[in-house]
């Protein structure tokens, strides 16, 4: 049974992944639709980042995580190197948790 769950998830997930890639070849998309694809991807990624920053299991994730993400965002906005953005975000959150901030 476990193997069926893993198989179904693996096949289904790969199906989603490969379907978009192969469809893109077959579809003759008009110009405006081709413009929309990267915008759609940006909207999805922004939604992922925002929900991951703010929520956990459908509820507010607490203050430590969004505070860390905010520090990272400010650094990225000031064009800090990517590594610094990631490390600063994680350290801020870790530090806040160490101090007892949820």
């Amino acid at each position: 049974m476990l193997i069926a769950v893993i198989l179904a998830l693996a096949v289904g997930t790969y199906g989603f992944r490969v379907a978009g890639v192969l469809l893109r070849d077959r579809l003759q998309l008009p110009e405006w639709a081709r413009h929309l694809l990267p915008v759609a991807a940006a909207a999805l990624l922004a939604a992922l980042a925002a929900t991951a920053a703010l929520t956990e299991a459908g509820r507010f994730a607490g203050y430590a995580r969004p505070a860390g993400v905010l520090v990272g965002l400010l650094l990225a906005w000031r064009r800090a190197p990517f590594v610094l953005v990631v490390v600063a975000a994680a350290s801020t959150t870790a530090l806040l948790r160490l101090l007892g901030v949820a």
Partner: protein
Amino acid sequence: MRTAYRTADRAMLRDVAAIGAAMVAVGASFGAVAVAAGLPVWATLAMSVFLYAGGAQFMAVGLVAAGSPVAAVLAGLLLNARHLPFGLALGGALGRRRWQRLLGSHLMTDEATAFALARPAGPGRRRAFWLAGALLFLAWNAGTLLGVLAGGAVGDPAALGLDAAFPAGLAALLLPSLRDRDTRRVALAGAGLAVLATPVLPAGVPVLLALAALIVPALRGRGASSADQVPDGTAVAGPEQHGPPGPDGAAPDPAHHAGPVVRAGEASC
């Protein structure tokens, strides 16, 4: 030309490594959590190799342990449906040959997608996708193995703040593309919609709901075409970007409903 590639590759390698390190840690936490939940070692490793989607993996472990295998499959697939539009946007970025598209599809994650789309379409984007895709796949699987071996000795990724690292990395990758006005409006509206919908909809759906924000420019601009702003459908982000990497799924999609086992940072991979 070749030198330019090498320099860019080295910079990107460093960026991918930052996210990769976080993915090793979260992967280790997945390995430890799965084994602790009673999953056999082979199943834990097989999930990371063949499913390769952090949020769905954590969710599946929680739901299988809770005795709901069907829910595990449905919830996991809902969570991963976003890969279809990612594939549409990436398109040829995986390569021209068939095997490149078939193999590259498996390496598609949120982070690899963000990494690739942060570069203009062309060979640079393809290199970014494969570099991030391959390295992050290795990082996630090495982490899983580590977690299986080390078990409880693996620390809690939340203590390291890694749950903040993934969304921050994704946002940083995305930021340059937000200079385009229409993209910015759509992305912000979509993010807002997703956050508002998160408490009331099952995991995965709020993120898909963000696509509804695509109507925003149509509502406002009515043909005040964005064509002059979006450099011919190429990069989500500006070319000058020092591309940050992001392992797919690293932005852990909060595996709501995922059950007790999962904690922050699960989304990674």
